[in-house]
């Protein structure tokens, strides 16, 4: 994704957070599907790659299979505690990014209005 001067890193960060939320939702949805392998995005690496290259390619390259702490007998690697923690953390980070964007928009708006 091209460097966006107005919003800095936050525009790209929001897109990566959104993709990660979708992936974690997929993991939670497949919590009881035998043989399902949970995946997650390495956020820091994906963001770094997206700043210099394409967002989709970077996210795909940094999507990794989750290493379970203990394998279940049906081959499913979703551990609900892990997934729920990651989902909550990601949701909070998404909200934070939104706040940054809102702050930036507020600043620009005030500057334009000349208040």
């Amino acid at each position: 994704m091209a460097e966006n001067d107005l919003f800095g890193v936050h525009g790209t960060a929001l897109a990566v957070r959104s993709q990660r939320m979708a992936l974690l939702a997929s993991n939670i949805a497949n919590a009881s599907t035998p043989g399902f392998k949970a995946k997650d995005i390495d956020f820091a690496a994906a963001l770094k790659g997206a700043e210099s290259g394409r967002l989709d390619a970077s996210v795909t390259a940094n999507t990794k299979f989750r290493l379970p702490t203990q394998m279940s007998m049906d081959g499913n690697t979703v551990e609900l505690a892990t997934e729920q923690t990651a989902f909550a953390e990601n949701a909070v980070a998404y909200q934070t990014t939104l706040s940054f964007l809102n702050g930036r928009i507020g600043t620009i708006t005030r500057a334009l209005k000349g208040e």
Partner: protein
Amino acid sequence: MADTPMNIFQVAGRAMSAQLVRMNTTASNLANAGGVATTADAAYRSIKPVFRTQFDQATQMSTVNVEKIVTAGEEPTKRYDPGNPLADKDGNVFENAVDESRELVDMLESARNYQNNVEVMQTAKTLILDTIKLGR
């Protein structure tokens, strides 16, 4: 459905439907627990849904579908009960093959998973609405 990209609501929504199917099979199984029949073939056998992951290449998301519903578990057990009106000529009845404790555990698990998906959907909804309100 296959040509449009999947979204997070479809992922969680279909998972909820799948868990609901599972809950329904559990209800059927528990409703038939303790029943008897004259022959082994006529006796009830536990039914179970088969979950299958559905992967969406475009968005890298995966949801879950119920592929089919199968009969699973042990065979009906023969019990000698000549007083039973359903007994065959040897005085035997066949008990429905339902493992009640396993069904209860299944019920709890699918209820928990259903709740998790509801939670995911609510969080996603809140975040998306906040994104729409960006800059206001």
